[in-house]
């Protein structure tokens, strides 16, 4: 397997421009600027089947093709570096160790949609990552890779970096745009979609950091090279974030289509302390978990995970051993989404808090049997009824955890206490 997303593991100082240039850096951008029309770039992206790495897995080329060709308003490109999905930590490494790869991806995207202004929106906590990118931008600007008349092509792109104020919801593309405009980070109603009316009223493409990092490779090596990696409909390498009860947690670049068991046992080194796998969340805390039996059959690509009843999301894989309290785990998820709900839509604002309160009761030993049905009912009432999918991001785990581990929930209620003395360990593990 060729490692192309995490080349910093093989190439020292890849974040420096001269090193990046020495390893084919900005060759894809040169090709896009001099040898390709915007239509050709979009067509290559479409035929590569690259799907967005931010979690929604939307086809990147198709997204770009929605931008009006004759827009009277300026077109914007936004790189979403608000990585805050639970269990996800790929973008932060990319921003630190391969900033030029992302800048080059942004440059090509700008060329494809005829944008001259691009923004990188950083998660509020990414002060260091922003500094890395700012330094890389300064180098690129000095060398003429961004700014006016890039590489003498006559094409201008200015890239601005912007740090959010620490809200998970600002990773949602329309909340990101609101926040970028200086407003409260509230997701917007669609329509209008960002491709028609995004940042400052102009047509806007919002792509995740990892998506941007894939772009130069597809342009340079061609869609066929890309499609040959993993399943045809969901191709390419993916950065997998392994956390939880594993011997070797960490960030791994793997081809799409790697079986989940291989990820857990071969790559992640299996469960420590000779314990067994109880549950694994495949794509960040927003999605339902798999039981050990289910996990054994799951292939890690967007469509396969979806078909198995969860989603690959950001590939933030969180592994839980058989000493983990599932009520505590779900409570931890609920706590996160209650805390991160922007509070705009009624079902999410009120539902996330209600669910956390009910789960806290069960975990504390004062739950009631009817709470289990109530939890499912409240989750169903939240699901699909809000502006963005943050409500669904709690509803789905609730509707996954409770039926899959119902006995454990019932035990909590019957014994009026948490049967796992060490339940708090998971919470600190997942939080860390």
């Amino acid at each position, binding site marked *: 397997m060729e490692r192309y997303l995490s080349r910093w593991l093989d190439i020292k100082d890849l974040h420096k421009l001269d090193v990046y240039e020495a390893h084919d850096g900005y060759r894809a951008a040169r090709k896009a600027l001099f040898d390709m029309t915007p239509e050709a770039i979009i067509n290559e992206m479409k035929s590569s089947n690259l799907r967005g790495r931010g979690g929604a897995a939307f086809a990147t080329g198709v997204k770009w093709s929605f931008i009006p060709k004759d827009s009277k308003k300026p077109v914007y490109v936004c790189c979403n570096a608000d990585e805050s999905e639970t269990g996800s930590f790929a973008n932060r490494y990319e921003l630190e160790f391969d900033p030029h790869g992302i800048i080059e991806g942004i440059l090509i995207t700008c060329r494809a949609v005829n944008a001259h202004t691009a923004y990188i929106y950083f998660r509020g906590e990414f002060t260091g990552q922003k500094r890395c990118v700012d330094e890389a931008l300064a180098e690129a600007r000095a060398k003429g890779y961004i700014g006016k008349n890039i590489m003498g092509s006559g094409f201008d792109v200015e890239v601005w970096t912007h740090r959010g104020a620490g*809200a998970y919801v600002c990773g949602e593309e329309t909340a990101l745009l609101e926040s970028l405009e200086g407003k*409260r980070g*509230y997701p917007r*109603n669609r329509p209008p979609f960002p491709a028609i009316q995004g940042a400052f009223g102009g047509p806007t493409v919002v792509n995740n950091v990892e998506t941007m990092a894939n772009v130069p490779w597809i342009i340079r090596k061609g869609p066929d090279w890309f499609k040959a990696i993993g399943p045809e409909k969901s191709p390419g390498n993916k950065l997998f974030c392994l956390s939880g009860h594993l011997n070797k947690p960490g960030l791994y670049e793997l081809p799409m289509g790697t079986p989940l068991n291989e990820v857990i046992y071969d790559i992640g080194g299996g469960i420590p302390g000779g314990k067994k796998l109880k549950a694994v969340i495949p794509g960040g805390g927003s999605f339902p978990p798999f039981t050990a039996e289910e996990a054994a059959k799951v292939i890690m690509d967007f469509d396969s995970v979806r078909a198995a009843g969860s989603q690959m999301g950001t590939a933030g894989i969180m592994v839980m051993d058989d000493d983990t309290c599932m009520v505590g785990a779900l409570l931890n998820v609920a706590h996160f989404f*209650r*805390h*991160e*709900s*922007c*509070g*705009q*839509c*009624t*079902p*999410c*604002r*009120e*539902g*996330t*808090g*209600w669910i956390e*309160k009910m789960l806290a009761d069960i975990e504390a030993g004062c739950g009631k049997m009817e709470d289990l049905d*109530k939890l499912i009912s409240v989750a169903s*009432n*939240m699901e*699909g*009824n*809000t*502006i963005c999918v943050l409500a669904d991001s709690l509803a789905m785990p609730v509707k996954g955890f409770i039926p899959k581990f119902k006995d454990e929930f019932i035990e909590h209620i019957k014994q009026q206490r948490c049967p796992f003395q060490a339940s708090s360990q998971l919470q600190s593990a997942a939080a860390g």
Partner: protein
Amino acid sequence: MPKVTIDGKELDAPLGINLIEAAEHLGVEIPHYCYHPGLSIPGNCRMCLVEVEKIPKLQIACNTRVADGMVVHTDSSRVKTAQQAVLEFLLINHPIDCPVCDQAGECKLQDYYMDYDDQSSRFELGKKNHKGKAIYVGSDVMLDQERCILCARCTRFFDEVTKTSELAIFNRGEHCEIDIYPDRPIDNKYAGNVIDICPVGALTSKDFRFRMRVWYLHETPSVCSGCERGCAIDIDHHRGRIYRFKPRYNPEVNSYWMCDEGRYGFGVLQSESRATRPLYQSVNRLLPEPYPAAIRRAAARIREHGEANGANAIGALIGAHSTNEEMFALKRLVKEVIGSDHVGGLSFTPPGLSGDDKLLIRANKNPNTRGLIALGIGADGVDRLTPPIASGQLKLLIVLRCDLVRALGEGEFLKRFGPLDYLLVLDTDLSETVQMANQMLPIAAYQELDGSFTNFQAHVQRLTKAFDPPGESLTAIEVIGRLGHALDDIDRSKTADAVFADLAASEPAFAGMSFAGLSDHGAKLPLERSPEPA
């Protein structure tokens, strides 16, 4: 026009309207909190979720524009479940303090709960989140954060209409709350509107709070008399007292809004200084007498002066606070019955009041200056009537709804009007001018009469009588009618619609208009209307 079907009923919908408006055309209510037609669409309350065929998820009606062939269901089981769910969510952290809440009776939480939910709570009462209560946030607005459903109507009003942005949403998720910024209270002249548009009891009026349960109030459509804009209002009253004014939608005049100066201006309409009995001056004292005697007295004085010095010994000065009908009736009495040329008008704004702003407030604080002009009376009456008074020709002046002493100052008043033999004042209050008058006939204030005003844009709107005038007071047109009868023994119209019909028949500016045609939004003076598009 796109054809939409809502709950089986078909509508040729005007282009660009949303599903809430389309349903309204068909008499179907789609419940909603955050949507307000005068503000942007945030789509946050999720109360208006409806089922649109061929779209898998429920859609918010407020942000869904009609499209040809759209088939919408507002009463399917999926929709009902979603409505119940939203109401349940809204109520879990709501304090349900309806018994002590001013909004009770006109609260959309109460109304929709009864109409769309009607279920017992599944939430433990003891677990409610608590937030701030009874916080004074400025400009007469009281805030209760617990009752708030965070629909953001108020913040959008201050962001979009007044552009002052005093209110904002702070914190996140279930801890969200509306508040002002530290030490930056609400300070704008339209703040009262947020109390109106708040669908729940989160924003209430400090003035109105705890003074009246809303279900005792009667609502009468009228027009604000605070300035020449003439915002359409509803008078909320109970047993002959006004408790509040609320703006009434009029797209031609004030949209959905009114200013606080007008809103809280009803105090002067029912002040302690209201006159309740006719008065006449006897040895430097004002003495009361019954109305029939007062009419006889006034008519006798008019007749005496006319006989002794000719018709032009009598004149009238009409204030720009009079209704169109009052102006017309008095002008006709003086010009046609008495036969005098001396009819003038006065439009007076005391100094130190607010000037024109970009929204509604006008510097001219008279509601009917345009009426004076349209009726050919003009607003230069003081200057026009001073010479005949000074020359001794004009001896008896009838003054309708203007406090000349206040307008001119006592010195100037005495200089100009001192030579008069007889000053007959028709007004609501015991003003300084009344103190100088020979006779005073108390008349109805705006809440006590039918009539109309012509605003500065030549838009004529109707006032409706909410309740009877106090004491022996009569409407001015009744008084003028009785005076006329006493002079020539002819019965004449004493109702506003009949006087308006006479007015429309004889005044070119009002040609073709009818009193009935002024219902709801009123009408523009015919000559001022923009030509119909071909």
